């Protein structure tokens, strides 16, 4: 569906994207992560035909990006939900969607059919006659997604779609994406700062300084870059500490709670059996995408 080969973007004195290559299969949920300034938005803008690439090739839905004809076909194939609100505050939701639909040269019948589709999917009935500017953040996001889907694209680009939204709206957005993928086999290209969202993707790419520093499924990335953590509270602290030192297990201690990195829950189980005589309580915490991100970028992650 999307094939990117050695894509580069050079600004006057700064190379924002440094020769990245990846591919996205049809129906896939593809998460594109990175620190601020890593090149995520630049890459997305190039894929959405908003920016010209300096070099490299991109094909989307079989069309070559960068040619007039290719870009026209690509624009018909994609829907974009931007991070910021791009609809008109002084138009109603329906007026906004109608105006945007016109730019896709949809016939009246097609528009009516597509509008009925997005109206149902995004639950627009209660907001379609209201001015976009008077809507809450969550309602605006529903309208934004409806606008992106009005021409029934094959690929949906989502640029940090849930940033600043309340948990209920975020859940609604994700349920909608899930339903779209299940019912229409839509390909979804997502950029996000929320690692828990990336964890449900089929493929994750992490970008740093314009380069791909990690790529794989969330599971493989966690296997490679994240550790499970075993926390222990001992009934006999002296024995517990001695036991850790004897086995040369690296640990961290805070207020009587000992933290140990383990490669798997099975390793944790073996340690727990040995420590059982002087153990008061324990907890096994699975490695997360946060750990992966921190590990490969050496950056702080945004807490959810």
């Amino acid at each position, binding site marked *: 569906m999307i094939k990117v080969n050695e894509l580069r973007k050079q600004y006057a004195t700064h190379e924002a994207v440094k020769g990245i290559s990846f591919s996205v299969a049809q129906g896939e949920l593809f998460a594109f992560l990175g620190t601020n300034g890593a090149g995520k938005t630049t890459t997305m803008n190039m894929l*959405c*035909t*908003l920016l010209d690439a300096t070099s490299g090739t991109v094909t989307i839905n079989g069309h070559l990006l960068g040619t007039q004809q290719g870009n*026209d076909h690509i*624009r*018909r194939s*994609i829907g*974009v939900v*931007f991070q*910021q609100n*791009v*609809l*008109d505050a*002084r*138009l109603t939701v329906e*007026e906004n969607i*109608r*105006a*945007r639909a*016109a*730019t*896709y*040269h949809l016939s009246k019948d097609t528009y009516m059919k597509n509008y009925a589709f997005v109206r149902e999917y995004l639950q627009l009935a209660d907001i379609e006659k209201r001015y976009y500017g008077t809507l809450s953040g969550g309602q605006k996001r529903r309208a934004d997604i409806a*606008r992106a889907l009005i021409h029934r694209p094959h690929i949906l680009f989502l640029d940090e779609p849930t940033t600043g939204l309340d948990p209920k709206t975020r859940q609604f957005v994700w349920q909608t994406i899930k339903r779209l993928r299940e019912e229409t086999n839509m390909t979804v290209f997502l950029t996000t700062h929320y690692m828990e969202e990336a964890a449900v993707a089929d493929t994750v790419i992490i970008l740093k300084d314009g380069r791909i520093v990690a790529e794989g499924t969330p599971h493989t990335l966690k296997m490679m870059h994240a550790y499970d953590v075993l926390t222990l509270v001992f009934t006999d602290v002296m024995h517990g500490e001695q036991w850790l030192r004897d086995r040369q297990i690296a640990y961290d201690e805070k207020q009587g709670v000992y933290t140990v990195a383990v490669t798997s829950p099975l390793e944790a189980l073996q340690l727990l059996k040995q420590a059982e005589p002087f153990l008061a309580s324990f907890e096994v915490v699975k490695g997360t995408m946060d750990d992966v991100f921190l590990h490969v970028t050496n950056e702080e992650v945004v807490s959810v």
Partner: protein
Amino acid sequence: MTAFWQLVFRHQKVFRRDKMQVFFSLLSIIIVIALYIVFLQNMQLDAIAQVTTVTDATKAMVNEWLVAGLLSMMAVTTTLGAFGIFVQDRDGHVSIDFLTSPMSRIAIQLSYVVHAWMIGLLSTVLALSVCIVFLGVTSGSWLTIGTIAEVLGLLTLSVLLASACNMLVIVFLQSQQAFSTFATLVGTLLGFLCGIYIPFGVVPSFIQTAIMYFPISHTTLLLRQALMEDSMASVFMGAPASEQLSYMLQYGVVYELHGTLLSTTWSVVYIVAWTVGLGIAGALLFMYKKR
């Protein structure tokens, strides 16, 4: 309705619903009317009283002078106000939404120009309608069909020139704040550069020369000639031709550049040349500035 006209329709709706934007595009007109009521009318009438008797025809002539300045100024400020949507869309990232659609870049840009042109024309034609009634009621002098047709033609030309000028400038205005500042400056400058706030003959000769090279001032000039023709003939009936010419030069009804009186044809050609030149330059800039 085609995609292009749907987009133009969208610009119109967004513009019309922004009451403040509509108000500010008319602000300079309100200032002109206020200045006229406060002193511009009396100043002219006092000056005319020194050479001839002030009659209803004189008042009609002076009112027509005001209306000509007002309409030419309106052609510029309303198209500029309408172009505000372009700056607003770019500043508020709305334009990137259009750019991800299959509509051509040129069609998107052109939709803003057509929108501005339509707003300018509609506003000036509406203003002309009000002015016709104003002139008729205040001085009993109703414009003839021929004069109205001539003025409508000149307004079309004025709006085209204003659209071309504004299109070129707004490409460089990156924010709403910059646009607002520019719009305020334009409103004020136009009043002087078109000889509306103060009579043309009062300013120093080098400024007069600059004004004569300023293309928009020629639309004011032509509108004055069209609107004031009958009333001037009535006011200066029997007076020496030199007195009428002196008035016309003093109040910017005719220009004398390097000792030569500029003809109507000269002004029309000058306006058309600028419109075409600025239009091409603006279109090229639009095309090369993708975002």
